[in-house]
């Protein structure tokens, strides 16, 4: 547990300033963070799966929470990037005359399942669980 300084940044997200101890916490707050920043114990910040959605954090008063709609958008972007990575990989294997480990239909089914799970997810853990099989398949296919 340690004190950190948080504030809402220009993108509407939350910035966390971590002091090194080189100067006092109060000096860091004055020198390195904007007016309105607040000091909190880092144990009060989102933990576990919520911590993995840092870009979806929002500051309400002195409490940081996860905006689930932002988290869904973040997870969807991640899924799309994974799908693009796999599509490129599959294309390169076909170009080299090699068979993909996962058939096209199995891959399409995995993607459909993941997108369905994302759309119905109500927690950050559910978002992570929705994407996990895609990541696993990509790792397997990379071999």
């Amino acid at each position: 547990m340690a004190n950190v300084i948080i504030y809402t940044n220009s993108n509407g997200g939350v910035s966390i300033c971590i002091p090194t101890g080189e100067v006092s916490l109060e000096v860091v707050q004055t020198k390195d963070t904007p007016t309105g920043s607040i000091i909190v114990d880092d144990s009060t910040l989102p933990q576990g799966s919520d911590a993995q959605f840092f870009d979806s954090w929002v500051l309400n008063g002195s409490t940081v929470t996860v905006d689930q709609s932002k988290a869904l958008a973040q997870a969807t972007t991640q899924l799309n990037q994974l799908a693009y990575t796999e599509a490129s990989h599959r294309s390169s294997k076909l170009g080299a005359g090699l068979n993909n480990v996962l058939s096209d239909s199995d891959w399409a089914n995995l993607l459909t399942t993941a997108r369905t799970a994302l759309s119905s997810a109500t927690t950050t853990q559910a978002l992570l669980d929705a994407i996990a099989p895609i990541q696993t398949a990509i790792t397997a296919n990379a071999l």
Partner: protein
Amino acid sequence: MTTIINAVSGNGLTQTVDGSGIIKVQSNGSTTNALAWINFNGVTTISINSQYNISSVTRNSTGDYTLNFANALTDSNYAVAGSIVNNNASDGWCVKSSGTSSAPTLKTTTQLEVISSSTSGTLVDDISFSIIIFGN
């Protein structure tokens, strides 16, 4: 203010001493030691392993960090070097700018903004940043 030890051609060592705790070792007026350095883990709430002349690190978003200097540097024309550790070989890091021909977004005498990303340009966190700053 800074303590300065300067090796001057034909004139031996000159020195200026103060109580700032900051030292510059110079050769004919050019500083040869690092002005600041840091090693930190950039994931989630950041953990700072070791540093010199860094007062804080701010995580702005995934893969986007601002280093704040404890003592301001002389000018912003300093050199930045370093490395990251990640299990994805395609990740890299750089001083942030808005485009390939643009000036740095934030590279001043008091702050430096750096980012780490994958080859697709997606910002990613990395577990071990080592950044060193040389300048006058």
